[in-house]
């Protein structure tokens, strides 16, 4: 009798396994967009290239482990070019969801090109793997269909700058601050956050200049003259990479010297900025310290040095710079891989649950992955740093705030 029961159980188990295997898809479809041209190409292509690198690696190993089917399944990356155009992006996001019926939806890089995806994902009840779209409006308690993978949400990202200005600034002699920002979701939100943190600190810091310019701005000479007229001790410029390139070149060209100058992208895309602005143009510029300079402990995926080697092997021509966005793309891929390994189905809400279960536990080369209740990234913080030249005239990062991670003292005022 017992033998019959065991035999029946074994047959049942075998049939169940066969059924499970039969249900397993032949591939996991990941849908995403990239911008091969236009204003956001330089931040989109590194992110996209990182995901492609990961897909190639995983498929060479037979695919990613998908817990829902208890087996490795190859990945199919369905990617379209939005050419940095938000209208095109909206159409293509819709296509990924309704026509291609992708299993996972991944946004393009940056808040501008993520914005159309947020609404579409929510409308179609698709969970959005938001790579670097940090805009504050994306995250709300009534939208469960989003989580930010790789950058701190813009409402908290610039806190180290504001804290440095309000806590260390007065002792250094910083009393007047100028804020110049590009009018888009990413940098607009950062400007709002800087303003808020400074005001809430009640420090003797006055904002003497606070202006937005279109994101497409490529010439800052007149604006720099206006900022100079306000006589600020510190200038905070919040823009995308092309904005920073034009801004820093104009600072050099006009011969203006600000005691403290902060820009976002010298830290995030250092290679690109150094190529365009030069090491001397970046000297003493304050910026975010990227994860590549922090060497975070890793419990999943490649370490920074190994990833850099893999990147250089895959993209030896140097047409796409290795920087913060290359790390962000790989971080997204790692979160996806880990999510698939813990999600019990490919149901979108189950994917969300799986992503949130990683919060605080997943440590990648980008730092600790941690989400707030709305899906905003609060773990992968970037300290405030300053770019200085080493003895060989090469750029090096000096973390200056918060003090517990500082690697040196800030040079203020700029010599």
């Amino acid at each position, binding site marked *: 009798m017992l033998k019959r029961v065991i035999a029946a159980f074994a047959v049942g188990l075998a049939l169940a396994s066969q059924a499970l295997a039969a249900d397993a898809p032949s591939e996991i479809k990941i849908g995403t967009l990239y911008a091969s041209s236009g204003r956001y190409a330089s931040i989109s292509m590194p992110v996209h290239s990182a995901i492609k690198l990961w897909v190639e690696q995983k498929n060479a190993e037979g695919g990613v482990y998908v817990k829902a089917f208890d087996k490795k399944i190859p990945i199919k990356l369905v990617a379209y070019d939005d050419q940095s155009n938000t209208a095109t992006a909206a159409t293509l996001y819709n296509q990924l969801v309704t026509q291609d019926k992708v299993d996972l939806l991944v946004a393009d890089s940056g808040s501008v090109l993520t914005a159309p995806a947020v609404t579409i994902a929510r409308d179609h009840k698709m969970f959005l793997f938001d790579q670097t779209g940090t805009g504050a409006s994306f995250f709300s308690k009534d939208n469960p269909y989003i989580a930010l993978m790789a950058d701190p949400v813009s409402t908290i990202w610039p806190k180290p700058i504001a804290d440095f200005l309000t806590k260390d600034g007065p002792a250094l002699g910083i009393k007047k601050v100028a804020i110049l920002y590009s009018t888009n979701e990413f940098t607009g939100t950062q400007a709002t956050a800087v303003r808020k943190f400074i005001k809430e600190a009640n420090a003797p810091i006055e904002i003497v200049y606070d202006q937005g310019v279109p994101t497409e701005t490529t010439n800052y000479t007149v604006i720099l003259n206006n900022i100079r007229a306000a006589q600020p001790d510190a200038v905070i410029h919040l823009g995308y990479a*092309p904005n920073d390139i034009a801004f820093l070149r104009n600072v050099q060209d*006009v011969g203006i010297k600000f005691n403290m100058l902060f820009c976002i992208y010298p830290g995030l895309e250092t290679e690109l900025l150094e*190529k365009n602005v030069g090491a001397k143009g970046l000297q003493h510029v304050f910026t975010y310290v990227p994860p590549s300079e922090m060497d975070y402990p890793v419990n999943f995926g490649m370490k920074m040095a190994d990833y850099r080697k893999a990147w250089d092997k895959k993209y030896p021509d140097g*047409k796409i710079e290795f920087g913060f966005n290359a790390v962000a793309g790989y971080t997204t891929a790692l979160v996806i891989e880990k999510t698939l390994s813990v999600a019990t189905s490919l149901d979108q809400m189950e994917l969300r649950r799986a992503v949130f279960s990683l919060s605080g536990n997943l440590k990648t080369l980008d730092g600790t992955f941690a989400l707030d209740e709305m899906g905003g990234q609060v773990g992968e913080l970037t300290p405030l740093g300053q770019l200085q030249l080493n003895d060989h005239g090469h750029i090096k990062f000096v973390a200056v705030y918060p003090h517990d991670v500082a690697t040196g003292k800030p040079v203020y005022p700029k010599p």
Partner: protein
Amino acid sequence: MLAYPLIAGLLFGLYFSLVGIGLNLVFGVMRIVNLAHGDFLMLGAFVGFGVFYLAGLDPLLAVPLAFAIFVLVGIFLYGILIPRLQQSVNPEMLSIILFFGLSQVIEAVMTIMFGTSERSIPSRELGSLISKIGKLLGASPEGGPVVILGQSFPAAWVISAITSVAAIFLVYVYLYRTRLGTLTRAVMSRRDEALATGINVDRVCAAAFGIGLALAAIAGVFAPFMFGSVTPAFGADATVTSFVIVVLGSLGNPLGTALGGVVYGVCYMLVQTYLSSWADLLPYVLLILILLLRPSGLLGRQVRVA
């Protein structure tokens, strides 16, 4: 506060005159709309990159080189594209489609070849040859910004403005002081009558097309210094701005472009000073205003036919 944007606008505007004048010359002579104009600007920038990064020379030397290369490119392209286009029922409309396609091809090829990232040249390198010659002659020219009426401006702006004035002057000399220029004006005035009088219209047009592209390429050499950096996708925005300047000055009148560029530059700098968030709307606002108030453009004598 007002002096700075006015002077900056004048310098910037003179550069924009150079950006637009080639487009106007091509339209004025052939009545075709070159939507790839901005892409030839971008290609000119890459000639500058080549001269500096490959040959290690002053990017200013890219100006004559770009001119020579793109005159030849223009004549070649004219030969294979324009005569067939002119035989069509509606060459103006078809030229929009044709050159839009050409623009896409140029951008795609350049992206494949050079990637999508921003590229530029250190500003101090522009005119470095002049500085070296000055030093050899005993002068001690200093790098850095140029001071005009007590205000400092990037040296690259002044160099590009001077080059623009020289280029506009040479276009004027070409049109009004040379035989080929006289023939060009004849074609601009009445193509059919020019043909009837025995003028070799194709030869005249090929020269004008080559010069038009070459002027765009010269403007492109300065683009990394004026706009911070250049990517293969730079062309589309440059084409839009060029159109505004051309329409502002007077469509079909190359010299009106000089005025259009200056008006655009000064307006842009004033808006950046007083209403910086709205600066990007300026081209479209100017376009609407000029079409409503003076459709023939600032220097136009009559309502254009095109």
